[in-house]
C-alpha cells in the first residue's frame, strides 16, 4: 500500500512539473468546451435562397415575401435568368433556386394551379431534405392563404378543415441545441484526455528506459498500475468538474439529476478508459504508436457515439456495434441524468455495462503487463 503512495506521489510531481503539458491538459478542454459547443448545431438556418421571378406579379411577390418573412431563409438578390442563378449556386453563393414561371399568376387564376421549380443544392443530403420540408411548409401556408382569398371572393363561406399539429418540446422548450451538445462534448473531452494521457504514459517510460529500472524493483504489477493510473483518474474527475461548472455558468445546462450519480458513473467510466489506455500502452513500443492506436479508436467511438449523428439512423448491424462503444453509454447517461433528471433505476443498464467492460479491460491489461519477458 505504501508503495502505491510513493508511485502516486512521483506521478503527480511529474505531471505538475511539466508546465506546458499542464497548460494543455487544462486549457485545451476548457477552450474547446466553451467555443465548440456554440458551433455544434444541426439547426438549418440562414439558407441562402434565390428567386428567378419570370412573372413579376403581385402574387409572385407575395410568394417571395413569404420566404423573406421566414427565419429559416435568407433571400438573396434576385436573378433574371435561371442560367445566372445556377452560376451563383456553382460559386456557392446560393443553395436554393426558386424559378417562378412566366404565367404564374395567370395560371393560378385560370387553371387553379401552377407549379414552381425548386432547385436545391443536395450535396448535404440530410440538410437538403430539411430545406425541402421548410420550402413545402411555406408553400402550404401560401396555398392556404390563396385558397381562403379565393373562397372569400367566390362567396364560398365554407371554412376549410384544418388539422393542427401542436408540438411541445419537453426538457428543452427553446430547442437550445447547446443543452444537448455541451454535456456530450464534455464527455468527449474527458475521454480523449484520459485515454491519450494514459496510453502514452507507460510507453513513455518504456521509451526513456525508466521502465526497466522499475521492473527490477520488487514493485508488484498491481501496485505499479494503480499508482500510475490513479493521478489520471483524479485528473479526469477534475476536468469533469470544471466542465460541469462551465456548463452551468456559461451555458445554463440544466442539472436535474443527482450529481453524485454523475460522479459515480464517471468514476467507473474513467476506470474503463484508463484500462483501455493501459492495454494500448502494453502492446506498443513507442509513444507515437500508442497515440495512433488511441486516435484510431477515439475517432471511431466519437463518430459512432450518437453524439453527432443519431444511432437510430444507423443500419442494424452498426447499431449493434455501438453496443461496444463506451462513449455511447456515457453520452446517453449524462443526458438522461442532467437533462431529464433520470435516477439510478433508469441508468442501471448503462452503469452495469460500463462496470463489466471496466473489469474486463482492466483484467486484460493487468494480465498482459509483463514485468518479465
Amino acid at each position, binding site marked *: 500500500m505504501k508503495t502505491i503512495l510513493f508511485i502516486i506521489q512521483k506521478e503527480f510531481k511529474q505531471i505538475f512539473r511539466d508546465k506546458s503539458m499542464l497548460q494543455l491538459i487544462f486549457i485545451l478542454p476548457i477552450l474547446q468546451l466553451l467555443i465548440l459547443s456554440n458551433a455544434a448545431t444541426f439547426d438549418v438556418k440562414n439558407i441562402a435562397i434565390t428567386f428567378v421571378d419570370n412573372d413579376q406579379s403581385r402574387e409572385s411577390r407575395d410568394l417571395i415575401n413569404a420566404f423573406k418573412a421566414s427565419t429559416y431563409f435568407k433571400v438573396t438578390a434576385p436573378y433574371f435568368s435561371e442560367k445566372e442563378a445556377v452560376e451563383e449556386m456553382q460559386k456557392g453563393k446560393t443553395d436554393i433556386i426558386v424559378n417562378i414561371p412566366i404565367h404564374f399568376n395567370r395560371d393560378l387564376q385560370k387553371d387553379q394551379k401552377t407549379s414552381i421549380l425548386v432547385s436545391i443544392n443536395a450535396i448535404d443530403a440530410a440538410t437538403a431534405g430539411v430545406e425541402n420540408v421548410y420550402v413545402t411548409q411555406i408553400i402550404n401556408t401560401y396555398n392556404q392563404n390563396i385558397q381562403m382569398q379565393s373562397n372569400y371572393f367566390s362567396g364560398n363561406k365554407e371554412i376549410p378543415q384544418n388539422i393542427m399539429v401542436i408540438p411541445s418540446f419537453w426538457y428543452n422548450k427553446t430547442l437550445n441545441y447547446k443543452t444537448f451538445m455541451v454535456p456530450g462534448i464534455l464527455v468527449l473531452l474527458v475521454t480523449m484526455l484520459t485515454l491519450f494521457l494514459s496510453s502514452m504514459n507507460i510507453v513513455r517510460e518504456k521509451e*526513456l528506459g525508466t521502465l526497466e*529500472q522499475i521492473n527490477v524493483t520488487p514493485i508488484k504489477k498491481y501496485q505499479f498500475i494503480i499508482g500510475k493510473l490513479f493521478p489520471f483518474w483524479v485528473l479526469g474527475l477534475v476536468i469533469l468538474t470544471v466542465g460541469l461548472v462551465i456548463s452551468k455558468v456559461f451555458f445554463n445546462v440544466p442539472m436535474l439529476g443527482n450529481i453524485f450519480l454523475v460522479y459515480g458513473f464517471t468514476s467507473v467510466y474513467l476506470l474503463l478508459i484508463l484500462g483501455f489506455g493501459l492495454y494500448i500502452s502494453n502492446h506498443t513500443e513507442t509513444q507515437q504508436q500508442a497515440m495512433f492506436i488511441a486516435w484510431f479508436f477515439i475517432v471511431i467511438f466519437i463518430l459512432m457515439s450518437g453524439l453527432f449523428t443519431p444511432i437510430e439512423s444507423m443500419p442494424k448491424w452498426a447499431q449493434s456495434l455501438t453496443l461496444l462503444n463506451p462513449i455511447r453509454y456515457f453520452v446517453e447517461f449524462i443526458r438522461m441524468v442532467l437533462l431529464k433528471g433520470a435516477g439510478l433505476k433508469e441508468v442501471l443498464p448503462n452503469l452495469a455495462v460500463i462496470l463489466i467492460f471496466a473489469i474486463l479491460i482492466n483484467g486484460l491489461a493487468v494480465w498482459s503487463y509483463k514485468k518479465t519477458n
Partner: protein
Amino acid sequence: MEREKIISVKNLTKEFGHFTAVKGISFDVYKGEIFGFLGANGAGKTTAMKMLIGISNPTSGEANVAGFDVHSQADMVKKSIGYMSQKFSMYDDLTIKENITFFGGIYGLSRIQIRQKIAQLIEELELQEVANNLVGSLPLGWKQKLSFSVALLHEPKIVFLDEPTGGVDPITRRQFWEMIYTQAYKGTTIFVTTHYMDEAEYCDRVSIMVDGSIEALDTPKNLKQQFKVDSMNDVFLKLARNIE
C-alpha cells in the same frame, strides 16, 4: 574473501527464435567479490544479466541469485538486489531528493529511513548545492554516482551494474571505482559488466563472454599469465583472435 556462493548459474540459455544469445553458461560468484562480466558488444552479457536480475525468463538452465531461483522466485530476487542500468534510469524531471524518496519508498524504506539516506547521500557525494535541482540538469558523472547510490538504498546483498561508466571522464571513472571498492569492503557483492578492459583489472575475478559462451573465467592476474600478455586488453584481443 569468503567462499559462500551468492550467485550460482548452471547451463543458463536464452534463445530468441532461431538465434541463441546465451549458450548454456555456467559460473559462480562468491559473496563480497567484485565480479567483472566482460565481453564485446553483442556477446550476450546484457542478455545474461537480464536473466539474473529477473526481468528476462531463461529458455533453459537455472540461476540462483542471493538464494532465490530467478525463474520461480523473481520477486524475492528483486528484493535482494540492486541494479544500475546503462541509461542510469532516474527520472530527469524529478529532483535528487524526489528520486531518492521514490526509489527508497519502492524498496520499502520508511520515511524516516529515507530522510536519513537522503542526508547521508548528499553528504557523501557532496551534492549540497544541487540537492533540489532536477536530475536532468546534472552532469553525467554526478548522475552516475547518484544512480549507484540509489541502487544501494535498501542495502542489498548484490548490486548489478550494467556498463556504469559509459561516456564518463577518466577521473570520474576512478572515483566511481573507489565507491565500488568501498561497497565491496562492506561485504556487498558487485556484479559489473563493462567493455573497458582496463576496468577489468580492478575486479577480483573476471569472465569473458564471446558469442554467447564464457571463454575465460579467472582472476585478471591468472588470465594475463595464461595468455602471456601484460594487460586485460591484450587478453581480450587474444581471445577474440583465437575465435576468429
